[in-house]
């Protein structure tokens, strides 16, 4: 079994549960193919890498407002939290792994989770606000370098 079966980059832009799910399903599947998988976590796609106890408070009115708008908002299918709960219940019934479990599996498989520095700046997050076991923050140019050599590039 070859250790390098090509490269895949997923630009994780959405933080909604119904999109985070496929982001990590495809990442773990790519890794299962032996692919070198990088996830460039930008804008709302950075949220799953935030420590659960960290709230986006922001250091100015704009980031403060973004925090108020985005904390705990999991999905367009939200309906006051019922949407994600329903999805979890359905997933549980069908034994589909929930996103947080898939993120753990992705790390286990060596998927590289790369946080976007610009998003961190926008949301007032530091490296300490993010979970362990991820890459150093990077920008669009480093992400682009990875995309240029990937045979599969996805934007979710």
């Amino acid at each position, binding site marked *: *079994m*070859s250790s390098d*079966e090509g490269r895949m980059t997923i630009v994780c832009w959405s933080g909604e549960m119904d999109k985070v799910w496929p982001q990590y*399903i*495809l990442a*773990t*599947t790519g*890794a*299962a*193919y*032996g692919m070198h998988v990088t996830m460039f976590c930008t804008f709302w796609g950075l949220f799953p890498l935030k420590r659960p106890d960290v709230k986006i408070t922001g250091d100015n009115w704009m980031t403060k407002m973004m925090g108020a708008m985005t904390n705990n908002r999991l999905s367009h299918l939200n309906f006051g939290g019922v949407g994600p709960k329903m999805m979890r219940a359905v997933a549980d019934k*069908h*034994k*589909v*792994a929930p996103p947080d479990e898939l993120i753990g*599996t992705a790390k*286990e*498989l060596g998927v590289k989770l790369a946080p976007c520095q610009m998003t961190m700046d926008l949301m007032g997050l530091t490296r300490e606000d993010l979970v362990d076991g991820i890459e150093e923050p990077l920008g669009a140019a480093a992400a682009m370098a990875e995309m240029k050599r990937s045979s599969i590039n996805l934007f979710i």
Partner: protein
Amino acid sequence: MTAVTKTLDASGLACPMPIVRTRQALDGLATGDVLELISTDRGSWRDVPAWAESTGNPLLESREEDGRFIFLIQKA
């Protein structure tokens, strides 16, 4: 009868976990070893052959038995 080196029971797991666990199981085996995979995920019927072909690990056998999908995969 092919000698099975290891059995992976992925019963109850849904996409993509049967394939993910298969990959992890094969990583722990040596070239030529045979992994028996048991899955109850109906998607496995298409996923496992596709994965085996693409990764170059020969699929020696696949069969359905009482709603379970059983595959013998040899590590390349």
